[in-house]
C-alpha cells in the first residue's frame, strides 16, 4: 500500500501541510483541526511533520465498541461519522496520539490519506512528505534523537563557555 513517507531533514517548518490538511478535512484553514502536526525539535531550530502511520494493529479500530473505524480502499483506517458515538476510546487506545476528537461534532477524526491523494504531500514545497509505495515506518525517531543529542551537546558546550 502507499503510505506517507516523511523525510524530516527536508522539513523547513513552513506549516503548509497543516493548512492544506485542515482545508481538505474541514473546508476551512484551521491548523488546530489538522491531522498532520509539525513538531519542533532542537529548541525550534528544526521541524518534522507527524501523523498516523496507519499501523497494522489499528488500535483505534479494534478498540471502537461500535465498529465505527474501518479500512478504506486505499488502506487508511477511517472514522465512519454516522457510526461514531464520540466515546473517545480510540483516542486512548492509539499509542501514537494520532486520532483526535472534535468537541463540536463530537466525533473522532484522523488521517484518511485524503482518499488516496494526500493534500499534505501535495502542499509540501520541499517534498518532506511523499506519498509512495512502502512499508510504514518510524520516519522521525533517528532524526529526532540526533537533533536532541546535538542540542544537548550545544547546551552543555554553551554552559561551559558561558
Amino acid at each position, binding site marked *: 500500500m502507499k503510505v506517507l513517507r516523511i523525510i524530516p531533514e527536508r522539513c523547513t517548518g513552513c506549516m503548509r501541510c497543516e493548512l492544506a490538511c485542515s482545508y481538505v478535512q474541514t473546508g476551512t484553514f484551521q491548523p488546530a483541526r489538522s491531522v498532520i502536526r509539525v513538531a519542533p525539535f532542537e529548541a525550534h531550530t528544526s521541524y518534522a511533520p507527524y501523523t498516523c502511520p496507519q499501523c497494522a494493529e489499528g488500535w483505534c479500530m479494534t478498540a471502537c465498541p461500535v465498529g465505527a473505524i474501518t479500512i478504506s480502499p486505499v488502506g487508511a483506517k477511517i472514522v465512519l461519522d454516522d457510526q461514531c458515538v464520540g466515546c*473517545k476510546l480510540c483516542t486512548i487506545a492509539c499509542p501514537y496520539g494520532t486520532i483526535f476528537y472534535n468537541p463540536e461534532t463530537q466525533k473522532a477524526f484522523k488521517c484518511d490519506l485524503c482518499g488516496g491523494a494526500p493534500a499534505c504531500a501535495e502542499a509540501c514545497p520541499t517534498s518532506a512528505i511523499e506519498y509512495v509505495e512502502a512499508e510504514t515506518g518510524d520516519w522521525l*525517531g*533517528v532524526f529526532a534523537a540526533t537533533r536532541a543529542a546535538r542540542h544537548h551537546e550545544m547546551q552543555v558546550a554553551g554552559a561551559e563557555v558561558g
Partner: protein
Amino acid sequence: MATRHVIVGGGTAGLNAIRTIRAYDRGESEVILVSAERPYSRMVLPYYLGRGIAESHVFTATPAHLAQLQVQAHLGRRAASLDTAANCLTLDDGTRIEYDDLLIATGSSAVKAPVPGADSPGVHSFWTLEQARGVVAAIREGSHVVLVGAGFIAFTILNAILALKAKLTIVEIAPQLLPRMIDRTGAEMVEKWLRRHGVAIRTGATLTAIEEAEGRRRLRFREGEDLLADVVLMATGIRTNLEWLNGSAVRVNRGIVVDDHLRSSVGNVYAAGDVAEGLDLVTGQPAVHAIEPTAMEHGRVAGANMAGQDLAYRGSLLMNIVEVCHLDIASFGAWDDPTAEAVAAARPDRWAYRKLLWKGDRLIGAMILGMANDIWTTNDVGMLKGLVQAGNGLGAWKAHLRRHPFDIKPAFIASGTTARLLPETILGRPSVPVGQVM
C-alpha cells in the same frame, strides 16, 4: 465432523471471539452462541440515554449479522451449569449443548448498595439495555437525579443526565470523586469543575436508607441532611456473572484464572472479558480489569486460540477515559502504584493536571486531566499510553518529562517508541475491520 465452538455471552468479548474465529476459518467450524441478551455494547448505553443515538445503534450484531457469520444463536437463554468432564453445557431451559471448546464471556452485573429501599421503584442501576430503558423512561427535564457512587461508570452517564436538563446530585462514600481512577488532587479539580457546571456533590457520604416520600425518594445518610430525588441511580459496583459455574471444575479466584492463551484451568474452556483474571501488561500480575479494551483483546486472543492458533497474549493495559462537561479525565497503567516515583504538574488556569509514574526510566502509568478542546490533551493521552505500552527505557528523556510533563511529543518521538510499537499486533497479523470479516 466440524469442530464445535460454544460461546457463552454475546457482549464485547464474546462477539470479538466469534469474529476472530471466523476471520481464521471463514465458516468451517460450528459456532454456537448462548447469550442472555442480544449482542450490544454496554459502554454505548450512555449515548442512548443522552439521546445522542437511537436505541438500535447500541447493537453490535443483528440476527442477520449472526446468520452471515454462520452463528447458531440461542438469545435470551442463560447458561445454567457446566459439566467439563462431559464437555456439556446446560441452559436454563434444560437444553444440553456439547462442545469441543467453550468460551466463558458472561461479563458482570451491577450491584446496588446494600441499604433498605435499594430495590424499591425509582431506584435504578445502569448496566444493561433493559435498565437503560428504565432510566430513559424515568428522567425528565427538571427531574432531580441522585447518582449514588462517583466511580468511572457513574461518570460515563453524567453528561447524558445533564443533556436531559435534569438536576444532578452526586453522592460518594469515599472522600473523593473517582477514587479508583484519579488521585486526590485530580479529583478536587474535577469536583470544582462539576460544581461550576451546576452539579451538587457530596463526598464522604454514607447512604443508610431510601424511603418512599409522596412519590419521590428520600435518601438518608449517616450524617447530614436527607436528599429528595425523583430518580436514584446506583453506580455502586459490579460483580462477575459466574454463579452458574458453581460446582464446575473451572478455577475461579477474583475472576476465572486464565493463562496467556486465555485458557482456564480446564484445557478446552476459555474465559475472556470482565469474568477473566488475566495478565496485566504493566504489573505482570493477574488482574480483573472490567474494561472494554481488555474484553476486546481477550475475546480476540481466545478466539484465535480456539480457531487453532497458538497465540500468547502479552497482557492488558488498564485504561480509562471519560469526558464530563468538556473536561477529559484519563488514567492508565499503574497510575496509583504507591511504590512508583510520581511526578505531578498542574496548570490550574487551563484545568490541566497530570501525573507520570516511573519505575527507573520506564513510564508505568499516567493520569491526565485537560480540556477536551485543548488539542494537546488528546495527543498526549495517546502518546503517554504508547510510552507505557512500549515499556522502553527513556534514558535522558525521563529528565525532560520530569521537567516538562506537558511536552510529551519530543520524548515520544526521539525515544524511538514508534519503531518499537509498529511491529506490535494482538494477533500477530494486521487487524481486520468488523465489517470485513465474512
